[in-house]
């Protein structure tokens, strides 16, 4: 009798520990856990979003399949990081010369409220002609960012306006849509072009 009770308590104890472990897993690593940051983007083939390019064409992840892709996030009211990134990319494209013609280069706004199709068209017009500007409804932008594991956040400024914090890395995908690597914002310039070439070469490897 007494022994049974002990066994009973033991079983309950094991059960309780197992439950605690399960709850712990659920909250930390399981479906209930927070989205881990700094994750790799999924392949373009696994993404699903509908946007509009700066010429008014409907675009989505499938638009990018078949050619290597360089993509990044920003907004046209951004005074420092975005024009700098766009200028850097324009410089890399100049360095790549003809090779750049084989790439998709996409600037995706995180501020669709101010960045309309017309705004994007005017803005990208100041940079390398290969750069396309994509915008769309807020919920579609959220889906893009989710696929890229990118983040953005609207922050009010003292001037009564708002600015956007956002992922400033440049993402590189192979022609197959597979994520290759990214160029971080503060990475030395001389690392960027070889990384882009890697994404370009992956295409040829995949084809042979």
């Amino acid at each position, binding site marked *: 009798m007494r022994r049974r009770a002990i066994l009973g308590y033991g079983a309950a104890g094991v059960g309780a520990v197992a439950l605690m472990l399960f709850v712990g897993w659920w909250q930390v690593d399981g479906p209930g856990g927070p989205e881990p940051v700094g994750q790799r983007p999924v392949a373009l083939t696994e993404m699903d979003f509908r946007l509009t390019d700066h010429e008014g064409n409907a675009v989505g992840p499938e638009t990018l399949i078949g050619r290597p892709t360089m993509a990044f996030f920003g907004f046209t*009211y951004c005074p*420092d990081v975005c*024009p*700098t990134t766009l200028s*850097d990319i324009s410089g890399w494209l100049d360095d790549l010369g003809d090779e750049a013609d084989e790439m998709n280069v996409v600037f995706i706004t995180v501020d669709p409220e101010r960045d309309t199709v017309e705004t994007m068209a005017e803005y990208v017009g100041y940079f390398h002609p290969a750069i396309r500007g994509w915008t769309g409804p807020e919920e579609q932008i959220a889906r893009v960012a989710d696929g890229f594991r990118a983040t953005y956040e609207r922050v009010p400024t*003292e*001037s009564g306006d708002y600015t956007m*914090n956002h*992922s*400033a890395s440049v993402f590189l995908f192979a022609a197959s849509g597979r994520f290759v690597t990214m160029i971080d914002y503060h990475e030395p310039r001389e690392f960027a072009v070889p990384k882009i070439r890697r994404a370009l070469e992956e295409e040829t490897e995949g084809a042979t």
Partner: protein
Amino acid sequence: MKKYILTGTLAALLTLGGLSVPALAGPEDVVVENAWSRASIGMNRPGAAYMTIRNTGDEPVTLIGLTTPLAMMPEIHETKTNAEGVSSMSPAGEIVIAPGESIALEPGGLHAMLMRLQEPMTEGDTFPLTLLFDDGGEVTVEVPILGIAARGPED
């Protein structure tokens, strides 16, 4: 108290000398070099200006603010990029420059954020930007406006 000298003539001469020449220094210990900015699209977006500020004196100088007729709210801001690659901007506050040291306002770091533009920033123009120091000293620099896609003072 540091000595302040009238630099009107000197400034004009240096401006004629072009970008490579150290720009106008008001308090004689502060030298501003390689100032530049990017053209704006219209007046709704904030502009940004960049430069190197050098303290050639024997005492620290503290930069406390900016004024310019071009913008109602000019302010030194700093862009920071965290470990996850997310960039954000915030006011940099007062900036102390040690004797013999310089600070760089450059893309992706410190910059003169020009909020509430009073007129569009047009490529080829210049605008005066005054740096205010905590001892009441001021340095005015004439900032050239380069193209929107400019990457540095040489573009």
